[in-house]
């Protein structure tokens, strides 16, 4: 089943004297259960593409359709709710809430969704165990390593039961061991729970794990290769 459909997507930044066509006509569709890497040189538009697909930024032209819903047409308020229920995010800099423990970070999204406390507790515990942090649930981010923080971020991204997870360079700040560990966890979740992941990366080892690799150059798709 097709969950993301991107049609002739363009994003132009006008704030400099010369307009920058960060995404310049991308057509792409993502099926449920895919494990996709977006690659390309620095400045090729990976972050911009993920932002627009995730509804964090608006498109200049073209459409993004998620599960039948054209997200460009949503009001900012509806779009926020749409993100909350449909998209999980993992950021390069982890971006956890520093004053919350690992468990509270995972619970928070469910709290925003209006989930009951008992449900939140059960699910956050289950997810943190799944990413191997069952023993560290009550630690704040400052007491966790980068790799552990990023695993909390993955647990948080899944907490809301999203249709897919977007991760912009999730391993860029991690050492190779943590990178491998995180990728294993993501792969397991993808295989066992059929969770769709789309991640951008510079790291060839990460690219090697992907089952589909989309290469961008100058805001355009240069190649799109699937491997089984």
């Amino acid at each position, binding site marked *: 089943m097709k969950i993301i459909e991107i049609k002739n997507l363009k994003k132009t930044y006008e704030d400099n004297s010369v307009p920058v066509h960060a995404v310049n006509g991308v057509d792409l569709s993502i099926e449920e259960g895919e494990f996709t890497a977006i690659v390309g040189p620095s400045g090729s538009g990976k972050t911009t593409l993920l932002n627009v697909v995730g*509804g*964090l930024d608006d498109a200049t032209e073209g459409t993004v359709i998620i599960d039948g819903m054209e997200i460009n047409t949503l009001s900012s308020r509806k779009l*926020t*709710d749409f*993100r*909350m229920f449909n998209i999980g*995010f993992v950021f390069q*800099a982890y971006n956890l809430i520093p004053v919350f423990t690992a468990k509270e970070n995972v619970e*928070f999204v469910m*709290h925003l969704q209006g989930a009951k406390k008992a449900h939140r507790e059960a699910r956050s515990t289950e997810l943190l165990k799944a990413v191997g942090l069952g023993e560290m649930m009550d630690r704040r981010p400052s007491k966790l390593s980068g790799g552990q923080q990023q695993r909390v971020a993955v647990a948080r991204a899944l907490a809301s039961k999203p249709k897919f997870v977007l991760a912009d360079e999730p391993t860029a700040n991690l050492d190779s061991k943590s990178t491998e560990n995180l990728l294993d966890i993501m792969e397991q979740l993808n295989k066992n729970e059929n969770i769709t992941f789309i991640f951008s990366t510079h790291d060839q080892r990460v690219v090697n794990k992907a089952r589909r690799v989309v290469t961008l150059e100058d805001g355009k798709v240069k190649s799109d290769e699937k491997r089984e």
Partner: protein
Amino acid sequence: MIWSIAWRNVWRNKLRSLVMIAAIALGLFAGVFTMAFMQGAVDARIESATKTELAHLQVHAPEFLVNNDIALKIDNADEILGNIAALDSVVAASQRLIAEPFIMAAHGTGGGKLIGVVPEQEKKVTDIWEKIVDGAYLEHDSRMPPVVVGEKLAKRLRLKVGTRINVQMVDRHGNLSVKGYRVSGIYRTTNTSYDESTLFVKFKDLQAQLGMEENSAHEIAILLENGDEASAVKPSIQKVAGNYEVQTWKEISPEMSLLTDSMDQYMYVFILIILLALCFGIINTMLMAVLERVKEIGMLMAVGMNRRRIFFMIILESVLLTVSGGILGMLIGSVVTKFFETRPINLAMFAQGLEEYGFASQIYTSLRGETLITIGILVIITGVLSAVWPARKALKLNPAEATRTE
């Protein structure tokens, strides 16, 4: 969880928040203490006005207070007095004769208000007899009738206990009457202008000098259990007093209630100025808190926190910060004022000036619960208003901030 994130965010930058909390606490301590101090001064002034000077209600012939004409008298004073004293809410009542004589002593002359009182009655209504600093209250009986004078007048005319003064006035028949009195006692209240101009003699002596009819008086002063009930009790006294005029102490002395009201207003202006000054500090603190969390706020928006919730979170942080300082300041303020409620603050250095205006030189602070509640509400409003601008700044942020690197 929004409350918990807001509360913990307050403590993220401990030093910055503590400095702000200390500033708020200090400002509110100053505000609370000054208010309690001024309230204490006003309370003392009102208490002395009612307990020593006016009592709670007075009955006169209409126009008497305007003209001070001795012919404007209450005719059946004994009967009215008896009926008033029999009322439930009345503690005691006292009848008085009032003249405005010319006073001649060996070392000078002066004017004033001469009040003829029945000592046994008057002692139950006002406490002048407790304010005697030398001699005795209208009790000594020589051949010459006794007079009690205030300390300030005694100093000016160099009067001592036993000194004779001559009191001159026009009597009921229009004749000039001069009579000698001997100083039996000297009193001192906290109101020096009262002390300088008010003299007390026995009712029957003044009655004789004025040639007043039996059973008539110029004034009936009434003491209640509680001065705040004066206007509530007034109708029942009016019923007994017939055509005579009944007035509460606030009506007789409107400057007293004006004093209370205007003091309240001044004090709230004072508090508002303090809060306004603190406002700038809070705005600055909250602005820093928002600007150093741009990425985090972007992330919160990305994962589903809508603008209304972000706005609420920032406002809540500001309110929690402000209220922490506010509670601390009000707590310290209350403890310190509690201390000075029983141990007076002595203003002897400035006392002379104050007593000219009728204010005591020893002030017991007085803090009302409703004052604290009002200040508390103002503190919360300050917290909210100071956060509006920083919170709006947070709303202008974009969720894409979350993915920005650099």
